[in-house]
């Protein structure tokens, strides 16, 4: 199988004087999951829409597997599954009919259609609803059917625009699991999201965009390392509340600790210089202080810190 790719070449979208996407150049190749991050209005959805023919670029090209989406849509999207915003489905169709429509449009062989639909529906855990009309579905259920439709032709490229948007916590968790399971197959997944923990949990690489311009594209670990400025961070959970003075006088002054601050009464954030040995020693010191340590872990917000620094720099 050819190496799948997604490429923006000077991709630009202008609405009058407003530049939604500004000469975006980005090339992603291979089987991986890339998170596409940026604040509201940064140009994430606009970029994805240009890759799916929902809007036309003002200038530049959106190429999928080397084919321009705008000039040769059928070929470019032949092996692409998409979920852009929250699509609606003709309400009087059943899940199966809606998926059959997409299967027929995409050219899934007649003999395989039923099997593929059943597999896709099973993947999004909607088996019980396969013969029910979509009009009665919740937003989360429709979202799952749309994910199933994106999987029908076993695409090599998946474009997902905030796939957990509007879902309840359980739905979000389930959709995240689905996306993670999709990674197990040889696919290029390009997924926009507001939720940084989601991206750090699911994606291998991250592209950040702001004001229509690409700020960074690298692996998640490189981006977080680059913006942690050589410092490591741990979060400490406490059984009891702790006061500010104790933190300043006894914890911030521990060897190798650069800074210590309270996140709230029972949680601390400690920045330190050094590796795992230093991290182990700090834990020992904290336990010795008898402040009621009940958890000690790297923060879940490393990517968030990097994101905030990058976005702040561009404001």
């Amino acid at each position, binding site marked *: *199988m050819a190496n799948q790719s997604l490429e923006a070449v000077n991709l630009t979208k202008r*609405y009058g004087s407003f530049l939604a996407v500004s000469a975006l150049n980005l090339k992603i190749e291979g089987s991986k999951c890339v998170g596409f991050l940026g604040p509201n209005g940064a140009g994430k959805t606009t970029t994805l*829409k240009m890759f*799916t*023919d*929902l*809007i*036309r670029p003002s200038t530049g090209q959106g190429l999928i597997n080397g084919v321009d989406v705008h000039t040769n*849509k*059928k*070929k*470019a*999207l*032949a*092996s*692409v599954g*998409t979920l*852009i*915003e*929250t*699509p*609606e*489905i*003709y*309400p*009087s*169709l059943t899940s199966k*009919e*809606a998926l*059959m*429509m*997409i299967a*027929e*449009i*995409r*050219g*899934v*062989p007649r003999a395989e259609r039923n099997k593929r639909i059943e597999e896709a529906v099973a993947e999004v855990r909607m088996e019980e609803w396969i013969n029910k009309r979509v009009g009665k579905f919740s937003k989360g259920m429709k979202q799952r059917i*749309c994910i199933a*439709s994106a999987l029908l*032709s*076993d*695409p*090599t490229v998946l*474009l997902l625009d905030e796939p957990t948007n509007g879902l309840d916590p359980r739905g979000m968790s389930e959709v995240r699991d689905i996306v993670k399971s999709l990674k197990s197959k040889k696919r290029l997944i390009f997924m926009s999201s507001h939720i940084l923990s989601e991206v750090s949990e699911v994606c291998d690489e991250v592209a950040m965009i702001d004001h229509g311009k690409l700020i960074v594209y690298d692996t998640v670990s490189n981006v977080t390392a680059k913006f942690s400025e050589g410092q490591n961070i741990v979060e400490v959970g406490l059984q009891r509340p702790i006061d500010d003075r104790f933190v300043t006088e006894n914890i911030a002054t521990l060897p190798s600790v650069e800074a210590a601050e309270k996140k709230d009464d029972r949680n601390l954030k400690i920045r330190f210089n050094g590796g795992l040995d230093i991290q182990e020693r700090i834990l020992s010191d904290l336990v010795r202080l008898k402040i009621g340590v009940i958890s000690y872990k790297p923060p879940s917000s490393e990517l968030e810190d990097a994101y905030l620094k990058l976005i702040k720099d561009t404001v």
Partner: protein
Amino acid sequence: MSDTETASSITVPSNLTQVGVTMKYTFLDYLRSRRFFILLTINLLISVLLTVLIGYYRPASFLASDLKFYGGWWGNSVTFVIILSGIFFGGDAISGEFQNKTGYFAVPNPIKRSSMYLGKWLAAFLASTAILVIFTAITVGNGIYYFGWNVPIQFGESVLFAWFYLAAVLGFTFFFSSLFKSSAMSIIVTAILFLFVFGLVETLVSGLVQVEPWFILTYGAQIIGNILQVPYPLHSTTVSSIRPGGVTFTTFNVTVPEGLAIIALYFIITAILGLVLFDRKEFT
């Protein structure tokens, strides 16, 4: 280049096949929709009302001859049924894809927008045809009851004209549907145009300015009713003696070739414009 594309083991079908797929599922959606049942109910109400009124009052204007019957029944009501079908199935066919976001489900697939447009148009034509077939069947049933199996040839011609007019009405409503992103707006605008504006302009232009309203679609559609009249009505000029020397007043009647040309032009122009608009429209 072939219009089929290959993705791994899957070959994306031809444009024509995709038109058929879009038509099939949109038609299924229409058939199960509330609007189809509403239109069917209106259709049946008109038919039942006419059946009862004619059966009870036996008006001479209807029962004098088979042509008068078909002219009175079909000629006076079928254009209304067609316009309602056009508004119900075409009014928001394209704008709904934007407002209801159903376009986000189908458009980001390897299918040309023109294939989607054609498929949806054909589905609307089929759904409207279903309504029209029922109306035709009830008309013919009543005609057979009063005049036997000898259905006049002019009625057959009128039915063909009606189907042609339906195509133009749907072309027009699809065009307006492509202009707007709001379903309500496109439905309201097409309804106002067909139910009020066209008639008003036709009356003003022909009555006051005395110009033949050849540019109005509903004027062209007069052939549907006119063909059922013997002899076929022509332009007629009357001279009024209100003022010295008299004032001439012309009543315009479209001829069959003119009517067909008007309907064809509306169909072709609005179909092309609607296709271009939908192709260029953005899902912002």
